[in-house]
């Protein structure tokens, strides 16, 4: 039974680190959006500075996954957990990269007059952030049903994306002087929309982990 305890220790360690990475990623997204909406360059730079820690955590989890598979040879639900962690980790790192990209746009836009008060964009980001938190909760508690509910919420993000996209295009057509700033905001909306997709991927992996069901590409 000693080996069993060693495996559990590794699995707990993986779970802790994924939660840590998830928390850092969530914070990066929230801070990036705060920096954009509040025109706060200092906060935007904090997001960029914090990305190294996220990258370090990603590599640490990668190594731990490889070690766990090589040394503990997990099977069944333990194996599915390790595989899910190995796949969720780069997804979280990519979400953090999107947060960095939003922070960079915030820094650029802060040098220029504000286009207009942001209303839908923060709402879209807030929903993406809530989805991310719910997805991580579902993963941590091994709740496949909760993960499926989060997946359904991606439609809200897509709807907001389409709405904001149309508004920004219309603004560029109506007033060409806004083109550069509006284009940057288009990138921000695209980053958030992608984050929604990544959260969906995390939820699909949670369903795999809990139910051994592959629901990716199953519409």
């Amino acid at each position, binding site marked *: 039974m000693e080996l069993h305890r060693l495996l559990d220790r590794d699995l707990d360690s993986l779970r802790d680190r994924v939660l840590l990475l998830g928390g850092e990623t969530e914070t990066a997204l929230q801070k990036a959006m705060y920096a954009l909406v509040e025109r706060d360059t200092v906060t935007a730079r904090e997001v960029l500075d914090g990305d190294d820690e996220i990258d370090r955590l990603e590599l640490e989890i990668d190594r731990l996954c490889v070690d766990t598979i090589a040394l503990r040879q997990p*099977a*069944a*639900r333990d194996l599915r957990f390790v595989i899910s962690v190995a796949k969720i980790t780069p997804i979280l790192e990519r979400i953090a990269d999107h947060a960095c990209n939003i922070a960079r746009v915030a820094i650029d836009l802060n040098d220029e007059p504000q286009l207009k008060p942001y209303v839908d964009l923060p709402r879209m980001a807030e929903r993406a952030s809530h989805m991310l938190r719910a997805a991580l909760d579902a993963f941590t508690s091994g709740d496949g049903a909760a993960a499926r509910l989060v997946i359904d919420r991606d439609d809200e993000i897509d709807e907001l994306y389409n709405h904001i996209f149309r508004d920004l295009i219309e603004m560029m057509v109506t007033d060409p002087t806004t083109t550069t700033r509006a284009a940057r905001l288009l990138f921000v909306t695209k980053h958030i929309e992608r984050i929604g997709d990544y959260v969906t991927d995390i939820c699909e992996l949670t369903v795999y982990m809990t139910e051994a069901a592959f629901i990716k590409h199953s519409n």
Partner: protein
Amino acid sequence: MATPTSTTAPVKPPTDAAQEEQTSALQDDGRERAAAKVSVRDLDFFYGRAQALHKISLDVSSQIVMAFIGPSGCGKSTFLRTLNRMNDTIPGTRVEGSVQIDGQDVYAPGTDVVELRRRVGMVFQKSNPFPKSIFDNVAYGLRINKLTSGKSELNDRVEEALTNAALWPEVKDRLKASALSLSGGQQQRLCIARALAVRPEVILMDEPASALDPMATQKIEELIVELKRQFTIIIVTHNMQQAARVSDKTAFFWLGKLVEVNSTERMFTNPNEKLTEDYITGRFG
């Protein structure tokens, strides 16, 4: 001496949910049993008053590797040995239920046990070569069963068996050397060659690599995968990674009961039964 009895009682669904599902599936299509190489129904086995196996029903198709896993004392080796009546040699044992090889009940009165064991060969945990030459070890079964018509055919069959056991290149120049001069891994492959020489249809392996080093184990495992092209192989192993590596289907035994039979892939990623999952994830008990 064993007192095997063969019953033809109708198949009764066992109480265990997994077995019930499996038996039900088996009952749904009687042709499946006829198509199986090895077909077992409602097998009970007793050591004196102690019942070691409870209502085991299981089909094994041709040319696959099936692994039996489970904790020590769960009955997997006992079950393996019922398939070619090796338990007959243990005094006070008793068998109920049926075991069929190609539709023939191996416990039917008048069964030629020697012929049965030619068709259903066995390889044991500890290699047990005879204190004879390499050649004579492989030729032994052919000679005592008079399965060859002359020296030339005997030579050919020995070479064929050693080749099939992936041992020929290593021993072809020293066939007259003592089998005991071979390494542990080579001795085990020699025992496999000895089993193959009489051209069996089913090969039973009881932890065939448990006493071998990793390299020798790898050779045995590669051999098992190669041999399933020609033979049906049933292997008992305590090494679950070995079961995962070599077998197509896996059966999990616990306390003399068959808990689950599934494709090996399914068994090691998402078994049906919680008991199976607890065992293969090391949370047993």
